[in-house]
């Protein structure tokens, strides 16, 4: 079988070709009959977004003479998750597969390290945000390349009219449609302000739609609250540190906030908050712009009053939940060189900008320097609703359960330990101390090697 090697066509510009090739220790040469490559991408929910990715891949394959096969795998019904698990067990399947959040770390031993690709990508694109590095480089090596499709922020999506009318908060003044955030005014957007607004909107009949279930939207929101209060469950070294004043303060706050959430929030999944906003019943949810995008189609009168902006400020800072997606190469792939070349091609600024535009602004690439694409300025109605969706300089990006070692954090996140602690207090009648004791017992279990 003809094995693919690096070609100069892989590289974006003639000027950088020699440097890149030298840096990666690979011999550039013309590719002819460069083998086969099978790729499994995440099936984007935005109509047409897959087409742009396909076009980018086909252009690369044509240049490099690679016989490329692309499958789009939906995440609904855990199909992507099951595909990854099955291919990991079978040691067979796609060469490149889309993975999200914890999966590059979970499968680290089965993935081809991509330090060489990332060295070049980082030199070209600048640094990634800290969440991308924490999840993509779990053992000191990059195990996957950050992907633009699917990567998202989960800050508030707010009905600015309801918030102003019932809680007296002018979100548009803090995060205006035609300019950068007014940092002075934005200082008033704190978790305490959110709590007061939640009470007022609840009284007015428009409760905030924050779930207390076990799916990722709930975990991400409450995880960012924990970070904003400085509460951690397990530290970087793997010590259980959940019993702290910061945790008590976060749980006490969560208990007070939960009183103003919908009565059934404990049974919510990732679709419930979307429906809550689209129905016009709610004044705020924490979500990427997917709820707004569906509202544009199904409830335009709601969509035109939705504003995306950063999370509230807490005692330890303004923590915004960020969920990255990746492209990973299996160790069993017979054509790793071609796979790396494709990922290098998809990681350019030009490719990322096209992918963001195709996603109508939903995707947020993991590179700090890529937060200035014009798509976010133009999307609407209302025009400017996505201007403050990419992370601004005052935000600290976070993922729930960080900074725990990867294998422990993954368990905390996927088993929703944070939201279950809150649910035990809110619904189960546990005291804060009892909920912390329960969490300690769970965390001891997660330490299992």
């Amino acid at each position, binding site marked *: 079988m003809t094995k693919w090697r690096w070609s100069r066509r892989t590289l974006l510009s003639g000027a950088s070709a020699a440097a890149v090739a030298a840096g990666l220790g690979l011999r550039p040469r013309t590719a002819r009959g460069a083998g086969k490559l099978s790729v499994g991408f995440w099936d984007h929910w935005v109509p047409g977004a897959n087409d742009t990715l396909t076009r980018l891949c086909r252009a690369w394959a044509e240049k490099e003479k690679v016989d490329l096969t692309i499958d789009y795998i939906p995440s609904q019904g*855990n199909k992507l*998750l*099951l595909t990854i*698990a099955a291919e990991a*067990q079978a040691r067979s399947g796609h060469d490149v597969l889309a993975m999200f959040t*914890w*999966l590059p770390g*979970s*499968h680290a*031993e089965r993935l081809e390290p991509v330090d060489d690709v990332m060295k070049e990508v980082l030199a070209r694109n600048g640094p990634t945000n800290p969440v991308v590095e924490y999840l993509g480089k779990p053992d000191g090596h990059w195990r996957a390349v950050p992907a633009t499709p699917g990567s998202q922020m989960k800050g508030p999506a707010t009905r600015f009219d309801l918030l102003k009318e019932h809680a007296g908060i002018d979100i548009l003044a803090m995060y205006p449609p035609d300019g950068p955030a007014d940092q002075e005014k934005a200082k008033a957007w704190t978790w305490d302000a959110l709590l007061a607004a939640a009470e007022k909107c609840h009284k007015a009949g428009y409760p905030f739609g924050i779930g207390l*279930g*076990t*799916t990722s939207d709930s975990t991400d929101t409450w995880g960012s609250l924990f970070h904003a209060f400085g509460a951690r469950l397990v530290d970087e070294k793997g010590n259980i540190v959940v019993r702290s004043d910061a945790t008590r303060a976060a749980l006490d706050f969560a208990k007070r906030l939960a009183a103003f959430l*919908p*009565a*059934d*929030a*404990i*049974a*919510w*999944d990732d679709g*419930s908050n979307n*429906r*809550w906003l689209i*129905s016009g*019943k709610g004044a705020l949810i924490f979500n990427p712009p997917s709820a707004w995008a569906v509202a544009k189609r199904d409830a335009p009168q709601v969509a035109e009053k939705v504003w995306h902006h950063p999370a509230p400020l807490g005692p330890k800072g303004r923590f915004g939940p960020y969920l990255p997606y990746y492209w990973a190469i299996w160790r069993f792939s017979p054509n790793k060189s071609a796979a790396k070349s494709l990922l290098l091609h998809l990681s350019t600024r030009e490719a990322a900008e096209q992918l963001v535009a195709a996603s109508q602004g939903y995707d947020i690439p993991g590179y700090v320097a890529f937060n200035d694409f014009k798509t976010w300025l133009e999307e609407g109605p209302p025009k400017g609703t996505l201007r403050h969706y990419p992370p601004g300089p005052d935000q600290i990006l976070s993922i729930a359960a960080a900074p725990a070692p990867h*294998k422990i954090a*993954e*368990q905390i996140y*996927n*088993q929703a330990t944070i939201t*279950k602690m809150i*649910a*035990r207090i809110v*619904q*189960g009648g546990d005291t804060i101390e009892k909920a912390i004791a*329960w969490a300690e*017992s*769970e965390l001891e*279990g997660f330490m*299992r*090697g």
Partner: protein
Amino acid sequence: MARATLAEAARATRAGPIAAGGLARRRAVIAFLFCLPLVLLVAALVVYPAFYSLHLATLNKSMTRFVGLANFAFLFKRETFWMVVEQSVIFAVSAVIFKALIGFVLAHVIHALPARGQRAWRGLLLVPWVIPPAMSTLVWWWMYEPSYSALNWLLVGIGFAPVPWLGDPYWARFSVILVNVWYGAPFFMIMYLAALKSVPAELYEAAEIDGANAWQKLVYVTLPMLRNIIAITVLFSLIVTFANFDIVRILTAGGPRDLTHVFATYAFKLGIESNDIPLGACVSLFMFPILAVAAVFILRDVHRRSREIAGVAA
């Protein structure tokens, strides 16, 4: 036809015991070859995965090291695991009891209907069982949905307070059991109906002559005659219900607070969603001893009963 059979028998007798043994062996080989595709299918889809799960259950979380029974020992110390065991038993036993009772009543009602109307009713009542459960459960989910429950819309419409079908632990348990009963009762009904039709009418006539009332006929004729089929359907249903995944997964995903998890959904949560495949395999294997004990008792009873019937017939 009869002449040919006699001729074959005569030939076999003349050929002696060696030839008869060869024929039997040949027939056994042919029978085995006919069964072979199914045997291979079962081996590939049941035996291999079962042994593979056993193997997985003995590995550490990263699946790089043999840890023996350490995963089981770990599970036994977890509060959530014992909660799942309790919930699985409650879910399976209560659902099977209600399915059996409802199926029994429905079978009698259908059996009592005039033959002309029976077919339509039988078809209608089988509908829940023939719809793919993932689809029908989605419809139930829509009726229970936390914010826009169709059932709550009706309840509120007639002046009642809305019910937190999936948000309250007790209502959530009730809801998943109700859907399982709705889905599984028709299976019991059709099995009991078939068994009822095979009960000789003479037994009821004799009981009637002896002055038995309806209740006595049920207790002394119907139930003994249906005992084997009841035992076997209960066993099959218990196995399937214990291993249920789709209903709980779609309706509650194990929530709230893990209070509706059953073995399969908890195994999925640990094994696939939390990427701890060995622990997930352990949870799923835990069903095996429970079901094996139930199967031994039920099948022993069925076997004893069959021998009794055979003895009476002889």
